[in-house]
């Protein structure tokens, strides 16, 4: 009856590109061991089939009689794996090229390149994670096609779950407290042990508000920041773009729905995606006859969430430069003063927090990255450990929970009898349960099928 093909073995690079010297290729599925056995020559001569689950082995990946790389290979047998299938992870220590070569060899040996989020889809379909978690993961990876995020998000989701569960516990205690007095009306003595409902509800509300706020950050991670790079001709916009792109950290993909004609690049700054529109236009600026007029800049500036204004630090500010400064003064703006290597004119140093770089040498780029983060990640959130809500459905559920708790306060303030408190307390409890996947929603089946193109 199930029309989903779970028999393929899938593979993908599981680390973000260029993060240090190691890259991990993950292979999952029925034939994962068999496929990798064709490629992996263990130092100890064992075949993968013989190895114990959750062990690491040293050896080489060989394809077409050539050694591609020295690797460490991790064997994990179903069902104690992320996907609940047999999983092999190959830790290469070559750079980006070696990672790609190993992936290619794995695919040529019988695996299929995983679709974005497919490991998570399998984790879901094999009952390893629930829909809410799967969705959270998908929300992020849909923009970035990075398998590595799946794990990270899961961890975050776990923390979120913990905080939601704490909230639900508080509400449940409140509800139980009211229920006891209702179910045992004869027992007057229980009345003395009553919890202060308003106080607890207000505390819960404040926690929910905090969580809702993190969604702004979550949204940035999942949707990216629309960024405009503006500046006079020849100030180094193109070099800056190239510096951003040429960094190994950059992931270059097409944003869905755009064509190659309107060039849009996606750049990851420590996980924060910058969406840079009209890169063709920026490149054109190298052309001697290009004429990027102020009008064009205005429309770009207006639609951007972040404006990087580039100046040539080796020359004095022109009228046009000053106009640009004025146009961007109310935006999230980073003033980048380029050509640091050629010496900077004093007048730039008194501008609004300028970042000095040399796009050519890469000097100062780190400061630029830091500035981007400082602007957008206002809630002091550590993405590797803190709670981050990226899923709009979660935000909506939290909002509903908030409304329900406000109703509770209203019920108290209008002097309604206490049983009526339980209606909205229970609703709040259920809405919070939607975030953790503990409340069964009636549109669940539609969600499953819209999220995971399943079906016949």
């Amino acid at each position, binding site marked *: 009856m199930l029309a989903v093909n779970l028999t393929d073995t899938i593979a993908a690079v599981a680390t973000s590109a260029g993060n240090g010297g190691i890259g991990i290729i993950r292979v999952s599925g029925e034939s994962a061991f068999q496929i990798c056995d064709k490629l992996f020559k263990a130092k100890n001569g064992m075949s993968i089939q013989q190895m114990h689950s959750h062990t690491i082995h040293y050896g080489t990946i060989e394809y077409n009689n050539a050694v591609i790389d020295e690797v460490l290979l991790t064997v994990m047998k179903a069902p104690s794996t992320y996907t609940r299938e047999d999983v092999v992870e190959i830790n290469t220590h070559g750079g980006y090229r070696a990672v790609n070569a190993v992936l290619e060899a794995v695919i040529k040996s019988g695996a299929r390149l995983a679709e974005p989020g497919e490991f998570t889809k399998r984790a*879901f379909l094999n009952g390893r994670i629930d829909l809410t978690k799967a969705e959270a993961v998908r929300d992020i990876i849909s923009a970035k096609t990075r398998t590595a995020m799946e794990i990270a998000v899961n961890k975050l989701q776990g923390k979120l779950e913990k905080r939601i569960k704490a909230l639900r516990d508080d509400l449940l205690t409140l509800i139980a407290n009211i229920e006891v007095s*209702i179910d045992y009306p004869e*027992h007057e003595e229980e009345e003395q042990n009553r919890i202060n409902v308003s106080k607890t509800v207000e505390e819960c509300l404040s926690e929910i508000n905090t969580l809702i706020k993190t969604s702004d950050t979550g949204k940035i991670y999942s949707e990216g920041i629309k960024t405009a790079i503006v500046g006079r001709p020849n100030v180094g916009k193109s070099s800056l773009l190239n510096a951003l792109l040429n960094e190994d950290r950059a992931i270059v993909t097409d944003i869905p729905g755009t064509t190659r004609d309107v060039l849009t690049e996606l750049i990851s700054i420590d996980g924060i995606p910058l969406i840079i529109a009209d890169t063709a236009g920026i490149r054109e600026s190298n052309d001697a006859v290009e004429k990027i007029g102020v009008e064009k800049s205005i429309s770009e500036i207006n639609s951007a969430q972040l404006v990087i204004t580039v100046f040539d630090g080796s020359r004095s500010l022109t009228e046009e430069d000053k106009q640009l400064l004025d146009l961007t003064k109310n935006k999230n703006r980073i003033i980048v003063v380029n050509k640091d290597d050629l010496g900077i004119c004093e007048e730039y140093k008194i501008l609004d927090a300028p970042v000095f770089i040399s796009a050519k040498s890469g000097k100062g780029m780190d400061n630029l990255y830091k500035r981007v983060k400082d602007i957008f990640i206002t809630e002091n959130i550590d993405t590797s450990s803190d709670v981050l809500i990226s899923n709009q459905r979660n935000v909506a559920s939290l909002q509903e929970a908030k409304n329900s708790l406000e109703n509770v306060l209203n019920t108290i303030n*209008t002097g309604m009898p206490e049983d*009526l408190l339980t209606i909205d307390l229970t609703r709040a409890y259920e809405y919070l349960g939607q975030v953790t996947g503990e409340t069964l929603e009636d549109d669940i*089946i539609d969600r499953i099928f819209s999220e995971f193109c399943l079906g016949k």
Partner: protein
Amino acid sequence: METYLADSVDVVVIGGGHAGCEAALASARMGLDTIMFAINLDSVAMMPCNPNVGGSSKGHLVREIDALGGEMGKNIDKAYIQSRMLNTGKGPAVYSLRAQADKAKYHTEMKRTLENTPNLLVRQGEVTDITVEEGHVTGVITESNAVYKCKAVVICTGTYLTARCLYGDTITESGPNGLRRSTKLSESLKKLGIGLRRYKTGTPARVDKRTIDFSKMKEQKGDEKIVPFSFENKEDDIKREQISCYLTYTNEKTHEIIRANLSRSPLYSGVIKGTGPRYCPSIEDKVVRFADKEQHQIFIEPEGEDTNEMYVQGMSSSLPEDVQIAMYRTLPGLERVRFMRTAYAIEYDCLTSNQLKLTLEFKDIHGLFSAGQFNGTSGYEEAAAQGIIGGINAGAYCLGKEPLILDRSQGYIGVLIDDIVTKDSPEPYRMMTSRAEYRLLLRQDNADLRLTEIGHKYGLISEERYAAFLNKKEAIEKEIKRVSKINIAPSQKVNDFLTRMGTSVLTTGVKLTELIKRPELDYDVLKEIDEERQELDEAVKEQVNISIKYEGYISRQIKQVEHFKNIEGRVIPENTDYSLVPGLRIEARQKLASIRPVNIGQASRISGVSPADINMLLVYLKG
């Protein structure tokens, strides 16, 4: 053993307790030839434990039984000796009606009704066997080797199956109150492949009224205004002189005696193996579990008008008799108390009730139904509620009619039955308001509006009553419509009235409904400024007031019900093979296969089935 054919009927009800009475009456009233067996006809509708009917959520059950055309409400209206509406300050959903019963009268009145119901024979005798052929019930055999052929059987054996009563070292192999137990039927059921388990419950001592000093206790009188349980009765029909109950407390001395003698309790020494209810624990349980509590409330309640026996609510125990007497005498007012009956615990066989469908029919035996304490519940009202459903469905089965299933949004009865067949209750199940998710809609005052129609459909509501019901319904709707249209201008008269009622005055005109919603006001008092109002029946006024006053809350709850109905609407085919569903955890697979839920909603309520399992099931069913 030579058997003989004694009779051929439609429905046999085994047991004449609260479940059995309702089952037998429902079946007979549906026109089916019915026999109700009881081990002793003098113990029909006996109340072997507390002398009251109703209370929190149980009162709701009684009113629902009445709305469906059952007997419990009418019977307690005849036999009550004190009536109170509890919880009135806590909201309309949780008003709970409770009446003290004259136990003897309760029995006599119910027996009279049974004996005078057409199509029903009440028969003393122990059923020892149920016969099943090709998965269908064919009849029962009694201890006298009499065969009664029938199409359907409702098992309502209460606490009688292989029962034993205990206190201290004293163990009697008997049913409650020293009545004969039934041993052979358990064996017959096991042979049919029916899984049984062992539960226990207990009852406190009955003491001699003449040895109690009531001056040391707090008197609890009945209400002045009497609300009948039955929708067919009016206050004036049943108003009578009431008898008081009394409140006293345990103290450190009581607790000391209990603690010192715990080792002599069969419960703590391991003699009792059955699982007891957390909800009405023995006094020794309470003292052990809530060690830091300095006192527990104890109520002294009369067992009837013509007896000196008093029930000591809250002091159920299985400690040895000498310990019981010593600890009872530590209570203020009981210093010189003399026992008439000793407290005891009772152990009995009952059903693991997930073998039942939501109709209370066994999943694997056609025509076999069960109801009441045998299904693992506790309480007279819970028993009666299942009894009427079991009786209706046994009748429907014989007649080839659609069975009756009430869902969780239709009544406490629906909640009760769904809970016992879906969730694996590890202890005797007691109804509680907190179990009902949609209780603002499931009020005791509107049980007739919810269920009379259904009772009528199954032939349990007389045409006369049905006509009165339709009139009431219409009157409510008409009045709500009228009131919703009325605007109140800020006149001097209005503002004088509002000031007098302690609420803020008007500066502009408002809708009358807005005023009804104010906590200081209600529909009734507003008649002073509602000039066109006609005097209506109390019950109609109550509905109008609640519907308007709590409108916002009611509509939010209706939304929740819609959501619930959506999920309940996702049917799981009966032949679903859970071994084919990928990704299910083993526990979920086993539970689903054994309970065989009828829809996704029910599946999601099974303990051990997680949301992730439900996702898998949905993917599989859709695929």
